[in-house]
């Protein structure tokens, strides 16, 4: 690194610019489509920048009179993701801690994580039949329950990796002082593990927000249909206003993208820790 020639420095900068453009161009285009008029979007040659900014689709999708269905799916996505995240943390925190402190249980966690290999299609038929029997099809609660199958293993794994570096002597001292299990978790472990828990929470929420397959199968109408399913319906080739599709995409992407940018340090360390430590 010390002997960098000018040529190499130029090459690095050009390459960096290329990567930045590769990442940004499609995203920028999504946004431009969302504010372009239909005429701009079907022009040949294409208008890369609209003559005037058209915000009508945002208004259409976000006002209750015209965007009721879209807003309902937005609400459903938030509800399902929140419930599933909460559930995953509730089962993941104790399990992750137990696995971190008792290597003997490692194989159990291994088995749980191995379920990641299962394609959703391998579970979908029985899940459909169970949900139908319980009356939980087309229901946000039922969908959140199903999402636990994706979220819980992942969250537990992240939490275990995060709990590992927390020194044990603290909890041993507390245990000798007569703290019970709950006090131990609440007073000693969780405050120390808060950053890890926060990271796991964000990951879980993003995973749930992203889910499509189960949402497609198990929801039917505004009672439970999630945002990803609503967008797929728009993108199905039956909506001729490409700008409207793009607008829905921008709105759906905003929460995860904002979280990604704000929390990038925590996310990257969570992602790469998992990767580095396996």
């Amino acid at each position, binding site marked *: *690194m010390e002997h960098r020639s000018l040529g190499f*420095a130029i090459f*690095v900068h050009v390459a*960096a610019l290329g*990567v*930045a453009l590769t*990442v*940004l161009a*499609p*995203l920028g*285009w*999504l946004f431009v489509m969302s504010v372009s008029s239909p005429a701009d979007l*079907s*022009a040949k*040659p294409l208008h890369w920048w609209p003559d005037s900014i058209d915000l009508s689709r945002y208004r259409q999708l976000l006002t209750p009179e015209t965007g009721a269905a879209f807003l309902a799916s937005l609400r459903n996505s938030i509800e399902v993701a929140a419930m599933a995240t909460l*559930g995953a943390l509730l089962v993941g925190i*104790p*399990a992750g801690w137990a696995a971190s402190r*008792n290597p*003997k*249980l490692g194989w*159990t966690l291994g088995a*749980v994580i191995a*379920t*990641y*290999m*299962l*394609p959703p*299609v*391998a*579970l*979908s*038929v*029985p899940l459909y*039949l169970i949900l139908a029997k319980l009356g939980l099809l087309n229901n946000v609660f039922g969908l959140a*329950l*199903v999402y636990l*199958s994706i979220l*819980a293993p992942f969250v*537990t794994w992240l939490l275990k990796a995060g709990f590992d570096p927390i020194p044990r002597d603290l909890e041993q001292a507390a245990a000798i002082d007569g703290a019970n299990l709950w006090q131990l978790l609440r007073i000693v472990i969780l405050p120390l593990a808060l950053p890890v828990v926060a990271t796991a929470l964000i990951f879980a929420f993003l995973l749930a927000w*992203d889910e*499509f*397959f189960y949402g497609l199968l198990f929801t039917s109408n505004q009672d439970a249909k999630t945002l*990803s399913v609503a967008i*797929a319906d*728009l*993108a199905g080739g039956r909506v001729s206003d490409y700008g409207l599709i*793009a607008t829905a995409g921008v709105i*759906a992407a905003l929460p*995860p*993208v904002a979280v*990604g*940018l704000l929390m*990038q340090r925590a*996310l*990257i360390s969570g992602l790469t820790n*998992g*990767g*580095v430590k*396996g």
Partner: protein
Amino acid sequence: MFTDRLTLRAWVLMLPLLVVMLAVIGWPLADTVRLSFTDARLVGTGGAFVGVENYTGMLGSRNFRKALVATLTFSVWSVAAELCLGVLVGLLLNQRFYGRALLRALMILPWALPTVVNATLWRLIYNPEYGALNAALTQLGLADSYQSWLGQPGTAMGALIVADVWKNFPLVALIALAALQAVPRDIQAAATSDGANAWQRFRHVTLPYLVGPLMVALVLRTIEAFKVFDLIWIMTRGGPANSTRSLSLLVYQEAFAFQRAGSGASLALVITLIITVLAGAYLALMRRAAGQGG
């Protein structure tokens, strides 16, 4: 005694997770196995035992072979491209340049973009009449005429792979970067002063640090790619001429659109088996690599 009590406590803490896993994964999986030996339909009749008929019928069908080839093609190419591009960009991000912090921050964007939105975005970009790709290529003089990117078997699969790679290579790059930052500076410097060239330094100093994390990324991405559904469902629905119909799409069609839950279940289990074998092979490789390295 003390340790036994601790172990018991650990089991108690593990219990809620295990119960949930059993309910949403264990039991459904077992039921899928049962269904796969029946002619059950999705709605209505319970289904009678038919032995391995579903398996033989499915494995011998043209549709299955075609979908297997499509899935393999998609997985191999997209994972290979993501790893190569990811490592290259990871090496780049490890260099010093203006705007490095900003570029690292940008890398999170494709990863954060919901899969469905990514698929929708690329479908719009590839639109044969009014898409940005055709417009850009012709306006830059790189192509004479508009192409039907998602409408021809030769390009549809490639178009899908590009969309998948764009979303997933940044994650690999970030993982590679984290691994690179773990390479001690003094070893690098020592290698340089020993007269090692750039490739030798990469091969003997840097690469050993990258192998472990990249193997994990490889396993995860391969599993993900093999399960692909969302991207294809939105961009091509398996077309043209079913050339991009992945195994997951085929199961959906069989179990839900045609309502043959039994044969859909058998196909789903075959996919699961293939993924398990792939992941097992990778893990064995990793263990061997780790044994040699350590």
